């Protein structure tokens, strides 16, 4: 994998003006470098700016500020008012709604980009065949998309995108319209195609497990701002904010009070939670932890409490225990069985510390969601 930069965003900003809500900065000063051959995800809740960014890279949207480079070529620049047309950017793109042309059979769909480029007929046939083979669509050349399932239609879109051998592939929630089982298979197929063709992937999704399973690095954004860019493992294990902690994976948040060098659950100074206090902790803090990073034992070390509720999930058991006045969720495999009411000890093995909730941020999110 070379270290060349495939996609670069510099100070990219996009503002929309709406009649009811005034001006909204949908994308606020994005700076980003994606390496060649990398699989990079844009992840965030709806309205975070991920789709707008992708559409700016594709050339469907102008920029309010900043510039975009693709493989070293300046393709969008607001200062120079330079916008290379989408068809001249040499991209592959797959859309959520498949966007397979229903009036063409599969061969014609996949051959379309080559025909437009006036590739020789013989070569078209060979390259389409190859692309179809890679997407496990061989033998379906003469079938029309309407006769195929969602998964197969998305494979056509993939074949159409790879047939021109683009350097950069944009995937706009390509798996959201598929059922869960198929989603998993297609994930592997996309990864496999990337391995063979070596293109760079930009993958937009709101599904965190999908992003984590696919990406080399990912960008989490929220309300038009980049929050954190890192590898999936680092993002999951070392989130830089409460937002990322909450957005990636299931977590439990415990409000705590720090008193006399000890940590107590909020509003209950009876029993301390045996946690080391990090530097710079205020008197009130939030301790966050993953549901499976709380050790639940009969009489091991940790905070003594009892099981309030047990819920069986299909692949694990979920327990609710009280810590002070708060209910804390814990997940264990089915093998470790506790009964409601049973005494137990919980030990928070890998806590993250955050300052208390920010009300202003919540209000802004609500405002943006209305639009």
């Amino acid at each position: 994998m070379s270290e060349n930069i495939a996609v670069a965003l510099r100070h990219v900003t996009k503002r929309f003006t709406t009649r009811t809500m005034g001006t909204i900065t949908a994308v606020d000063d994005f700076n980003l470098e994606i390496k060649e051959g990398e699989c990079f995800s844009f992840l965030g809740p709806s309205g975070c700016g991920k789709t707008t960014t992708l559409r700016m890279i594709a050339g469907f949207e102008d920029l309010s500020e900043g510039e975009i480079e693709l493989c070293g070529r300046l393709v969008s620049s607001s200062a120079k008012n330079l916008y290379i047309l989408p068809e001249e950017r040499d991209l592959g793109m797959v859309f959520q709604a498949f966007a397979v042309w229903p009036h063409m059979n599969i061969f014609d769909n996949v051959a379309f980009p080559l025909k437009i480029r006036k590739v020789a007929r013989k070569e078209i046939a060979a390259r389409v065949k190859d692309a179809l083979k890679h997407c496990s669509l061989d033998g379906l050349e003469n079938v029309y998309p309407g006769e195929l399932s969602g998964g197969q239609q998305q494979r056509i879109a993939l074949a159409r995108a790879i047939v021109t051998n683009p350097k950069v592939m944009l995937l706009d929630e390509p798996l959201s319209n598929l059922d869960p089982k198929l989603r998993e298979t297609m994930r592997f197929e996309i990864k496999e195609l990337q391995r063979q063709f070596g293109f760079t992937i930009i993958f937009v999704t709101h599904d965190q497990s999908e992003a984590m399973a696919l990406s080399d690095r990912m960008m989490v954004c929220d309300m038009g701002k980049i929050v954190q860019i890192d590898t999936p493992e680092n993002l999951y294990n070392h989130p830089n904010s409460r937002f990322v902690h909450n957005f990636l994976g299931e977590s439990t948040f415990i409000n705590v009070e720090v008193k006399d060098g000890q940590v107590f659950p909020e509003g209950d100074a009876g029993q301390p939670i045996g946690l080391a206090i990090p530097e710079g902790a205020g008197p009130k803090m939030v301790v966050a932890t993953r549901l499976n990073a709380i050790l639940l034992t009969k009489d091991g070390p940790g905070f003594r409490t009892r099981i309030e509720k047990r819920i069986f999930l299909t692949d694990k058991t979920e327990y609710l225990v009280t810590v002070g006045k708060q209910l804390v969720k814990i997940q264990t495999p089915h093998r470790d069985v506790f009964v409601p009411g049973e005494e137990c000890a919980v030990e928070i093995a890998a806590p993250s510390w955050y300052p208390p909730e920010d009300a202003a941020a919540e209000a802004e999110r609500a405002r943006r969601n209305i639009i």
Partner: protein
Amino acid sequence: MAFLRRRRGGVDPSAQARSVSDLSALEGRHIGVDGIMTGLSFILLFIIVVIPIFMIIYNAFFYEGRFDLSLFTSVIFEEENLKAMGNTIIIALAVTVFGTIMGLFYAWLLGRSDIPAKGFMRALFTIPYMFPPFFGAMAWDLLFSGRAGYINRWLMSTFHLRQPPVNINSIGGIIFVECSYYFPFVFMQVVSALERMDPTLEESARIAGARQSQVIWKITLPLVKPAISAGALLILISSLAHFGVPSILGFSKNIYTLPTMIYALINRSGGSFEGIRQGTALSILLVAVVAIALVIQKYVLSSGSYDIIKGKSMRPTLIKLRGAKYPLLLLASLTLLVIVVVPLVMIFLVALVKAYGLPLTWANFSFSNYVKVFDSPATMDSIKNSLFLSITAGIVCMFLGVMIAYVINRIRPKGRGLLEILSILPYSIPGTVLAIGVILSWSGSLAGINLYNTIWIILVAYMARYLSFSMKSASASLQQVNSSLEEASRACGATHTESLKDITLPLIKPAMVSGFFLIFLPAMRELTTSVLLYGPYSRTLGVQIFALRDAGMIPQASALASVAIVIIIVCNAVVTEITKDRKGA
């Protein structure tokens, strides 16, 4: 994993079972409300639809109880009739071609370009829907008929021409006027297809390397092709059966189409049975032509409809017209104005002129024509008749439509397919033909019932003609009302009849109201069937305008037409208001 395979596999039979409730089977032992409604639907459709159709076929091929083709062949090979058939086909094809091109142009302009004033242009498109084409024909006739038309005269005097430069009383004129009323069919179909289309279908073509113009030709146009053909065929069928325009523009120059020929034959014979028989034979010809068009329609529509509904809601990228923007806007809105607004204005102006032919100046204007119109008992009768007919047909059809729709969608008896066909069929039968069928059935030959020359025979014809409107409207609405709503009320303790009354009827009430107006409005301006059915005391508004004009009282005809225009505009405003209220609730 095996369980996943199981979960996905196959159709859910319980889901199928769901759609067909057993309720009717459970209560089927005694004939309930359902049974009565089913029986009534069949009987009524038999009377208003099957009998007239049967009578046409019988009278065309049987004479005094014996099979007899001589009339049929003699009528068909009459040169005059052959020519009429030729005209019909030429006009219909030309109207289809030009109307489609015009509709497409406007659809593209409004659906995909950044042309301003879209709302204004859209509003103009509704006008041809509201007014009958024969009003337009009247107006254009006033402007361009031979040496008498206002513009022709002005052109001749200004440029010292010997011959009138434009002759509207020609095949070309007929094509032009029909075109200006029928092109919105294609426009509406295509514009809505463009709006529903997933923009990523076009965007993905851009990414694939296609230029904007290539996208239009290779992606957009092929995808809206089904909408284009649907609209074009609608034009074709409407034009084939059209009576008003060719009758107004063609009679003076002896240009006939099949519908006007049928009218002429019956008119010439003074309503004698012989004339009607000849008309019957010709109607078979007309039905044959329309049937061919319908077959084509069925074939075309079933072959290529694609699923192009959008996924994410996103606005399509509009094509920037740049320099061409304002010239195109000017061209588009001027054309629309000329086609749509000028005829209406013309009718009002002429209505004010003391005598036809006087120049349109203030000095010559007066309200005397209106006074004459409101003074004439015949004219007032025609307004009353039309109101009575439209309201009665509207109300009766509204209830019949709901009943039949309920039987077809909910009770689902055996033979519901037949029921559906019977209720929709009359819509495809040209109005002229339907009128003949009604005459044949209800002028004494069946069970001695003679309604000829009464208002009732027109009512029967209207009911047959418009029943499908309210049926379709109620049917669409019923399909929206999930059967679980009715089932929930059963579980809440309501009986079948109570559920109907408390749940289903209130829910489809909006559809019933709009079904009423769908019938009331076209019935108010109806001409094609009424002109064959009216008697001395049962003239309708359309017939009266037509007759006044025919008698040379052109300013009075215009005055009455302008009254009709006002009535139509008021009614439309009322409909819009009602529908707006409903959405707000």
